[in-house]
């Protein structure tokens, strides 16, 4: 089981004829993802790795039934590519492109509000439901099917954690990198709710970092509405204030968005916080131990997402 992408996902690649688009199309096809179409304006009629290329997303959707778009276009063209995907009725749009101006994303956010369609990213590695579908640039080899949902703001750190989970025998339902920009389409809270609903997910790893308040919002949500065990890790404890740490969104400004603050919020919510990435598999394994599992099932059977469930959940920890 998985969330957002799976066997039914049919992918259209925006910017398929570009260097990155073409390379990762190969990677997605090799993994078994159904890449049904590509789009590069002016190159309609061509093929990339036997995938037909169209001039527009609208045409690609009409001809192939694509229901997920992944965007590899240069940052300056990314806003338009997102608009095109959303306007064409694509329900899941994954934007890999990095370096999109904040203003462009403020505009996209305002435009998408109240409209259908979910955006993942930008500046993200995409997502993978091990064994069935990968959309984006994650290396497929590190993941294996299982019951842990992984959500993260970074790329390689996610790979590191997923790889450690896999080596510890802890497979994943879905792993998603939501992106390192200040404004991203899908946030921690969105993914937590999806994992909570997903019958194939039994525990969740949340990998946050400095900057913004998305981790704090996640902690609040977990306390209120998430019954499945969550393990958190926050990167950037040693980051100096006022400096952008690679990701546009990874910056402690005005004393807020520190790793310490985020870790404290998780701990207050009763969520174990890993001190190093290598601690994560152990904490997840503990959370999934049979004894606890039976309790968890009992709780869920009684009153899912309600106040009693919350209370029991606190007792559990």
């Amino acid at each position: 089981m998985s969330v957002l992408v799976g066997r039914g996902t049919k992918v259209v690649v925006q910017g398929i004829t570009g260097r990155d688009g073409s390379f990762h199309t190969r990677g997605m096809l090799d993994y078994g993802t159904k890449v049904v179409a590509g789009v590069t304006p002016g190159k309609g009629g061509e093929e990339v790795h036997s995938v037909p290329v169209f001039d527009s997303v609208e045409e690609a959707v009409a001809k192939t039934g694509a229901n997920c778009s992944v965007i590899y276009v240069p940052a300056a063209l990314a806003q338009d590519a997102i608009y095109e995907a959303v306007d064409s009725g694509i329900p899941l749009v994954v934007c890999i492109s990095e370096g999109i101006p904040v203003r462009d994303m403020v505009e996209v956010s305002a435009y998408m509000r109240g409209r259908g369609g979910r955006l993942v990213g930008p500046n993200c590695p995409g997502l993978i439901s091990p064994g069935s579908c990968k959309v984006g640039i994650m290396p497929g080899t590190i993941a294996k099917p299982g019951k842990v949902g992984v959500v993260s703001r970074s790329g390689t750190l996610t790979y590191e954690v997923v790889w450690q989970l896999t080596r510890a025998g802890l497979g994943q339902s879905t792993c998603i990198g939501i992106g390192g920009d200040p404004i991203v389409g899908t946030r921690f809270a969105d993914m937590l709710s999806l994992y909570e609903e997903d019958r194939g997910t039994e525990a969740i790893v949340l990998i946050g970092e400095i900057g913004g308040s998305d981790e704090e919002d996640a902690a609040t949500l977990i306390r209120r509405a998430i019954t499945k065990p969550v393990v958190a890790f926050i990167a950037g404890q040693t980051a100096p204030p006022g400096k952008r740490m690679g990701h546009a969104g990874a910056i402690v400004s005005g004393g807020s968005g520190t790793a310490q603050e985020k870790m404290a919020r998780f701990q207050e919510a009763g969520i174990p916080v890993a001190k190093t990435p290598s601690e994560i598999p152990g904490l997840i394994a503990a959370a999934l131990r049979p004894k606890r599992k039976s309790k968890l099932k009992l709780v869920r059977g009684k009153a899912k997402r309600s106040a009693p469930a919350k209370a029991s959940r606190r007792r559990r920890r």
Partner: protein
Amino acid sequence: MNLHEYQSKGLFRAAGIPVPPGEVASRVEDALQAAERFGYPVVVKAQVLIGGRGKAGGIKVVRGGEDLSREAGRILGMELRGLKVSRVLITPSADIAREYYAGIVLDRRNEAPLLMVSPAGGIDIEEVARATPEKILRIPIDARGLPTYRARAAARFLDKDPAVQKRIAPILIRLVHAYHVQDATLAEINPLVVTKTGEVLALDAKIVIDDSALDRHPDLAAMRDLSAEDPGEIEARARGLSYVKLDGTIGCVVNGAGLAMATMDLIQFHGGKPANFLDIGGSSNPDKVEAAMHILTGDSRVRAVLFNIFGGITRCDDVARGLLLALDRLKVRIPIVIRLTGTNEREAREILGERGLIALSDMDEAVRAVIARAAEAA
């Protein structure tokens, strides 16, 4: 990208926001001439990209030429938090009646800009937010910009005098507009002052431009002041690396920002001190690895270097080649600890093995090793 006060004021002036006249000088003689044009008293303001210049002695009011020569001479050339002052702004001293705050930041939670105004001007807004949050009015900005009625409400929150309110409201509308068209991520007037004659002026100005948007603002990109930055950071940007200098002893070369932060944290967790944040990015161009080594070996505090590479898109063999290239071209006298795993890991180990280099595969192990090596080298 942070703009200097004088640059920010220039943008505000162009946007129709009243700012006091001012001239930038990098020599005492120029400062004197400017002051004579304005008439004394004038203010001498160090143009460096830090907050709290006043407390640090970087801002002085002077009443005559001698006074100015001494203060301008002192400020030009002083160091403020590690940054050398190479320019001062000379501006007439204002007769301040009241001081306010007006600033726009990106509100990440609401995914939109947020205008904040406060009658507690001239002090750090974060301090105001902590101590007296009721003294801040927050106005979310939507696609309409700042509607006039909201600008008026903000002006009423700041000042009781209707004539002054009428001057403040358009300043706020223009501030919001400038923030938008200039692709700013911060635009701040602190203080926004009311003079004794009822004039309203932006006495200080701070604008931060979204780095990702500089391509569409060549005029702003040209304002970058390289003299105000660390040479390593300048080189890193030129070579497409993401680098932040810290004051520890263990250099890090990592692919990916999250992993790079986690690596720094792990160094500290195991008792070491990271010398930098450095992300070589997703591509595995050997030149980038060489550039990274060049920057790190240029930092005299670095005692040992840790490579932490998780091969995904980045191919481990490319990184290995880049490292050998760096060792060939640069005189590297410090120990290097390598951790590699993922794509083309085996090829990388072979390449490194030919030169007698061994790569670890566990991150914690590698961190402990580099800390030990740094201690030996110290």
